C-alpha cells in the first residue's frame, strides 16, 4: 500500500510537472536545430552515415512524433490527470467548507483585521452590514455563536476551479490532436486548369487518398503588385458528386473551401508552357476552348481555323503577352499580340474571330481533414478562460464578529479577511471596504 502511495505521489507531484516541462523545453530545441522530415539520404549527406544512423535510432528526423517525445507528452498528461484527481477533493472542501465554523480566535490572528465599536446593539449592526455586503456583490450568511453574531461574506470560491480548467484544457487539446492524427489526413494535389480528380496524395506517405467526391479546377489566377510581388493566388474550384456539380467557389490563400469535412487550401501553383486559347466566331457566337503547347499548330477543322502561339513575353515563369498566329479559311494569316488573359478581335471576311489566350497553370492545393480541430479550439478557449480565472479571480473571504460590549448597549466589531491570491491587492480592497463599513454608522 505504501508503495502505491509513493507511485501516486510521484505522478501527482509538481516536481514531476517541472521535470516534464523542462524535458519538453530542452528536447524541443533539437528539432528546431536539426531540420525535420527530410529524406533519409539528406541526413546521411549532411551529418555523415554514423550520425545519421544514430539519428534513426532516436527518431530525430521526426522527433516530435518519436516514441520518446510521445512518452514525455504522455508523462505530462498522466501528471496533469493524477495531480488534478489528487488535489481536487481538497479544493472542493475549501470551496464548500462551512466558513462560519471558524473559531473566533483564528480571526484574531489573521493578518488582515480591523476592530472598532458601535453604540448600537448587535442585531442592528448585523442587518446593516449584511445588506451593504450583499449589495457589493458578496454572498453573505450569519450565525449566532456563543459570544455574539458571526457574519461571513465570500466571493469567487469557484475561481479555485480555474487551475483544473487549465489542466483539462491541455488534455482536451491533446485529445483533439490525437483524433486529428488518427481520423484525419493531410495531403496535396497539383490540379491543372480544366482537370479534376477524386484522389489526392498524403503529405507524409505520398499514398493516394480517396476524397469520396470529385474536385475540379475551373481556373487559376495570380494577381501581382506593381513591384512584381504576388498579391493573390486564387482558384475556382467545383465539387462534383455523381457527375453533378454540387458547389462552385473561388478559394484564395487564407480563404479555403470545405466540403464534407475536407478542406482545400490554396497553397502553391505551377506555371505551364501551355496556353488556354478560346476562340469565338461572331456573329455566329460559336466558340471553343483549346489547350495548346507553345509553338505548336492547332486546328479547329469544323471552322477551318488553324492557329498557334508563336511567341510569349514575360518575366520568370510568368507570361504577360502572347503572340498568336491564326489562319481562318481562305483569309490571309495574321499574327498579333494579346495581353495574357485578354482577347483580340480579328476581322475575317464577313465574320469576326475573337481570340483570347492565357498561360495555363496548375493550382497547388493542400487538402486536410481534421475532425479533431474543434476540440483543439475548445481546449484553447478553455485554457484562456482557465488561466484568467486562476490568476485574476481569487477566493475572498470576510468575517465580521459582532459582540455586545460590557454595558450591553453597544457592539464591538472584529472584521477579518483572507484571500487565496493577490494578497497586496486584497489588502488594499480590504482597507477600503473596512473604511466603508466603519463609516456607515457613527
Amino acid at each position, binding site marked *: 500500500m505504501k508503495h502505491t502511495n509513493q507511485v501516486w505521489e510521484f505522478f501527482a*507531484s*509538481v*516536481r514531476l*510537472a*517541472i521535470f516534464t*516541462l*523542462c524535458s*519538453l*523545453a530542452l528536447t*524541443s*530545441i533539437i*528539432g*528546431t*536545430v536539426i*531540420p*525535420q522530415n527530410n529524406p533519409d539520404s539528406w541526413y546521411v549527406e549532411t551529418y555523415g552515415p554514423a550520425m545519421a544512423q544514430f539519428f534513426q535510432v532516436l527518431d530525430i528526423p521526426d522527433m*516530435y512524433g518519436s516514441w520518446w517525445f510521445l512518452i514525455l507528452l504522455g508523462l505530462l498528461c498522466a501528471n496533469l490527470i493524477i495531480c488534478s484527481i489528487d488535489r481536487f477533493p481538497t479544493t472542493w472542501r475549501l470551496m464548500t467548507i462551512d466558513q462560519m465554523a471558524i473559531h473566533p480566535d483564528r480571526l484574531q490572528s489573521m493578518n488582515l483585521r480591523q476592530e472598532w465599536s458601535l453604540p448600537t446593539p448587535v442585531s442592528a449592526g448585523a442587518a446593516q452590514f449584511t445588506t451593504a455586503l450583499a449589495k457589493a456583490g458578496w454572498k453573505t450568511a450569519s450565525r449566532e455563536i456563543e459570544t455574539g453574531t458571526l457574519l461571513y461574506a465570500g466571493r469567487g470560491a469557484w475561481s479555485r476551479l480555474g487551475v483544473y480548467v487549465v489542466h483539462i484544457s491541455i488534455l482536451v487539446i491533446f485529445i483533439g*490532436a490525437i483524433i486529428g492524427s488518427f481520423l484525419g489526413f*493531410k495531403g496535396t494535389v497539383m490540379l491543372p486548369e480544366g482537370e479534376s480528380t477524386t484522389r489526392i496524395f498524403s503529405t507524409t506517405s505520398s499514398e493516394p487518398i480517396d476524397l469520396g467526391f470529385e474536385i475540379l479546377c475551373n481556373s487559376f489566377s495570380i494577381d501581382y*503588385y506593381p*513591384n512584381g*510581388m*504576388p*498579391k*493573390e*493566388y486564387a482558384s475556382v474550384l467545383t465539387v462534383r458528386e455523381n457527375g453533378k456539380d454540387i458547389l462552385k467557389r473561388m478559394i*484564395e*490563400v*487564407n480563404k*479555403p473551401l470545405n466540403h464534407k469535412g475536407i*478542406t482545400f*487550401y*490554396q*497553397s502553391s501553383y505551377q506555371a505551364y508552357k501551355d496556353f488556354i486559347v478560346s476562340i469565338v466566331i461572331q456573329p455566329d457566337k460559336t466558340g471553343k476552348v483549346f489547350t495548346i503547347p507553345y509553338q505548336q499548330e492547332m486546328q479547329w477543322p469544323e471552322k477551318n481555323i488553324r492557329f498557334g502561339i508563336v511567341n510569349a513575353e514575360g518575366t520568370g515563369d510568368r507570361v504577360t503577352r502572347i503572340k498568336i498566329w491564326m489562319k481562318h479559311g481562305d483569309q490571309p494569316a495574321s499574327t498579333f499580340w494579346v495581353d495574357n488573359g485578354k482577347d483580340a478581335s480579328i476581322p475575317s471576311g464577313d465574320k469576326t474571330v475573337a481570340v483570347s489566350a492565357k498561360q495555363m497553370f496548375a493550382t497547388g492545393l*493542400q*487538402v*486536410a481533414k*481534421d475532425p479533431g*480541430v474543434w476540440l*483543439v*479550439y475548445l481546449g*484553447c478557449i478553455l*485554457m*484562456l478562460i482557465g*488561466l*484568467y480565472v486562476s*490568476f485574476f479571480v481569487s477566493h475572498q473571504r470576510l468575517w465580521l464578529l459582532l459582540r455586545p460590549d460590557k454595558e450591553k448597549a453597544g457592539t464591538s466589531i472584529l472584521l477579518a479577511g483572507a484571500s487565496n491570491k493577490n494578497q*497586496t491587492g486584497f489588502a488594499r480592497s480590504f482597507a477600503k471596504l473596512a473604511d466603508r463599513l466603519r463609516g456607515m454608522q457613527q
Partner: protein
Amino acid sequence: MTSSLLLGITTFTYLFATLCFVYIFVFKAYRVYPFAIAATIIALVIQTAGIGLRWYESYGMGIGHAPLTNMYESVVFFSWAIALIYLLMEWKFKTRILGMFALPFAFVAMAYASFSTGISKEISPLIPALQSNWLIAHVITCFVGYAAFTVAAGLGLMFLLKVSKGGTEIKDGHRPFANIPSPDQIEDLINKSMIFGFIWLTAGIITGAVWANSAWGTYWSWDPKETWSLITWFIYAITLHSRYTRGWTGKPLAWMAILGLISVIFTYYGVNFFLSGLHSYGSG
C-alpha cells in the same frame, strides 16, 4: 512629416526619458520624476502618431495594411507595448524607479528599428499568406506578451541589484539602493507581469495556430518559430509552477524572468536568423 521621422524622434525621446530616470536614481532627485514620466508619455504619444501615420501612408500607397507585418514594424510595436505596459504599471504601483530598468528596452528596440542598416523600413505589400485578420490579432497578442516579459526581466534586474548589495537586513535609507522598492514588492511585480505576459503569450500562440489552420490546414507544424514560442511558454509555465514547490521566489524568480526574456528574444529574433521555417517573412 513622415512616420519614420516621428519614430526617429520617438527614439531620442525614450533615450531622454531613460536618462531622466538614471538622474533620479543616481541623485535621488525625485522632483524630476513627474518630468521623466511626462517625457515617457510624450514619447509614447509621438510613437503612436508615428505608427498611425505609417498605417495611413500604406493606404496612400494603395497597399493599406496595419503596420505590424515585418521586422521593423514589429520592433516598433514591441517598443510601444513596453512603454505602455511600463506606464500602466507605474501608474498602478508607483515604483518610481522601474523606468530606469524598463525604458532602456523600449529605447534599444527603437534605436535598432530606426538606425540599424540591416533592417528594411520600407512599407511593402503583403504576400497572400499574410492577408488575414488573424495577423493583427496574432502580432498584438504576442508582442503585448513579449513586452510584459521584458518589463518582468527589467524588474528581475532591479531585484538582483537590490539584493546584491547591502542585503535586506539594513534599514532603508542607509542602503546603497534605498530608492529601489523592497524585494517583496518587486517580487510581487515580477510575478504579476509574468502572469500577465503568460496569458498574452498563450493567446498569441493560439491565434497563430488558428491562423495557420486557416491558411495551411495545420494548426501546429513544429516549425522552429512555433517550437520556440512553446519553449518560451514552457519556461514561464515552469516558473509559475516552481513557486508552489521549490519556493522559487526571490533570486531564482528574478533569474527566471531574465532567462525567459532571453528565450523570448531568441523566439522573436534569433529564430529568423539562425533557423529556417515558415516565419521567414518576419526577417526582412
